[in-house]
């Protein structure tokens, strides 16, 4: 069985500035994957490549065994959804109106909604619990409410792979917990999640595997226990890993190291 998503020797740069060089990893069916790494290390670029919005300068991105660029944009949009870090909406659209936009890849020339579209929007709204926000203006929502709406946007697109860019950004502790819970539920529904994350302490809450992308360290891919090791993190971020995170880690690190040794054979 082929991987859901596979990067094969992918390089990419904006003009002369190289961002990614020879990136190679895959996301297997059933995985819930976190993407971590220092700021400016290319996480957002990698997600854009995964959504087929950018074209690699070398190598290729495969989705279910076929290169992304052999598919039409609309075809990709019915399988892969990318929810950006921030949504800046210049007009007072309501939450409902915004979530309905996610059905764009399924609509015809005149944009008529069919039952299937209506029910997909309904399910996404129900699932993320944003029913009460439906008629509110998106720009007036709090940070936590916006993040939930953004997940609803992704789900209404009915993707098999949901790419999230920093979904836990600007959330307080409680809202972060809620969001992790939501991501676990989304994953339980059979949607593959691939999310760029900053807060390392949240990773093991929801994710089964981790991709570490850093300009200072070769790419690491593996279970959270394997990748989130103090030495690796220190090299990748060029700083000692934060204490509060490491305390929890030390307690299980012995076991973790043994597991990782087994995983890497």
């Amino acid at each position: 069985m082929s991987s859901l998503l596979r990067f094969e020797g992918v390089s990419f740069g904006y003009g002369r500035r190289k961002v990614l060089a020879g990136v190679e990893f895959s996301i297997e069916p059933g995985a819930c994957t976190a993407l971590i790494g220092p700021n400016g290390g290319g996480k957002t670029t990698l997600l854009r490549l995964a959504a087929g919005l950018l074209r690699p300068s070398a190598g290729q991105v495969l989705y279910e065994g076929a290169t992304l660029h052999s598919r039409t944009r609309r075809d990709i949009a019915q399988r892969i959804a990318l929810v950006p870090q921030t949504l800046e909406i210049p007009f007072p659209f309501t939450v409902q109106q915004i979530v309905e936009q996610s059905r764009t890849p399924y609509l015809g020339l005149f944009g008529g909604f069919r039952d299937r579209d209506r029910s997909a929007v309904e399910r996404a709204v129900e699932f993320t619990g944003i029913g009460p926000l439906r008629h509110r203006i998106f720009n007036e929502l709090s940070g936590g409410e916006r993040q939930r709406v953004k997940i609803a946007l992704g789900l209404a697109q009915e993707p098999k792979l949901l790419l999230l860019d920093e979904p836990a950004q600007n959330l307080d502790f409680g809202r972060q917990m809620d969001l992790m819970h939501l991501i676990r539920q989304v994953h339980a529904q059979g949607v593959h999640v691939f999310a760029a994350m900053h807060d390392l302490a949240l990773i093991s809450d929801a994710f089964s595997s981790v991709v570490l992308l850093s300009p200072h360290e070769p790419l690491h891919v593996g279970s959270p226990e394997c990748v989130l090791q103090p030495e690796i993190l220190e090299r990748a971020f060029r700083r000692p890993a934060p204490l509060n995170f490491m305390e929890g880690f030390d307690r299980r690190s012995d076991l973790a190291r043994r597991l990782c040794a087994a995983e890497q054979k």
Partner: protein
Amino acid sequence: MRTGAIVAVLLLALVCAIAVGVTCGAVRVPLRTIVAALLHRHSLSPEDRIILMEIRLPRVLAAAMVGAALSAAGLLFQGLFRNPLADPYVIGSSGGAVLGATVAMALLPQLTWLGFSATALLAFAGSVATIAVVYSLARVGGATQAVTLLLAGFAVSSMLSYSSYFVEVLDRDYGLGLRILASWLHGSIEVPRWTQLGVAAAPFAASLAGATLLSRRLNTLALGDEYAQQLGVRVERVRIGIILTGSLLAAVAVSLGGLIGFVGLIVPHFARMVAGPDHVRLLPITVLTGAAFLALTDTLARTLLAPTELPVGILTAFLGGPFFLYLLRRTKRGYAA
């Protein structure tokens, strides 16, 4: 209110505005006479017939078309640039139009074609050519950044406007032409011939049809280029479509009425406050409001100080400015990002 109801009310308002425009003027022709003539009870006197059919009706229709075109173009550009301050001239069509009109007045004052004066023709050509230049300047590596487009439009438009002042300075025998140019610059609708209306109606109708197809995309673009792109929208193509459609609408308006300010800015705002931000609903509401508004304003412009005619641009600024400020004060919330 449902869109259908709003559209019906606006259609009625437009019909009333046209009726008022046809009835009012330096020579009074009672509405009763007109209705009787329409019902074939009486025929009009030859003078009345000329006043109504060759002067007032074409002018009111031209005003309605200009108002509709400017408002639709404003809506398209506000959506494209995700900026409520955009107007039909935002990417520079006004500068090209001004230069075209100036050159026409200086060099070819006598030329006409299908009833259009050289001023109107060169203004049209100037605005279309400017858009083409601005767009190709702003396009880098197959993509166009909205900000680059705005800045390039501003720079090119200013250059062209000042070139036209330069032409004026060079031409010392310009006394009379200058006054015509000034009134053109502040927007005033000429009495068009029916052929002129017909010629203008073709690109007008085509661009409105295009705008109808594009209006749904404007909703998607409101979520940002990247999000629209990942939804499968070919953003660059949609952008070209919007620029072409909006520029054509602006050029049609320029060729019939010169540079009329404020309409393209305020009418889409007014519509948004009535009907919300959904562009699919907004388009018909904007078009009808713009048509009725300019038909009425133009009637005021030619009757207020009759027989002197005010440039209609003066009135749109007088009426539109304060109204716009009122709306702005009343609905603060809609524009916070």
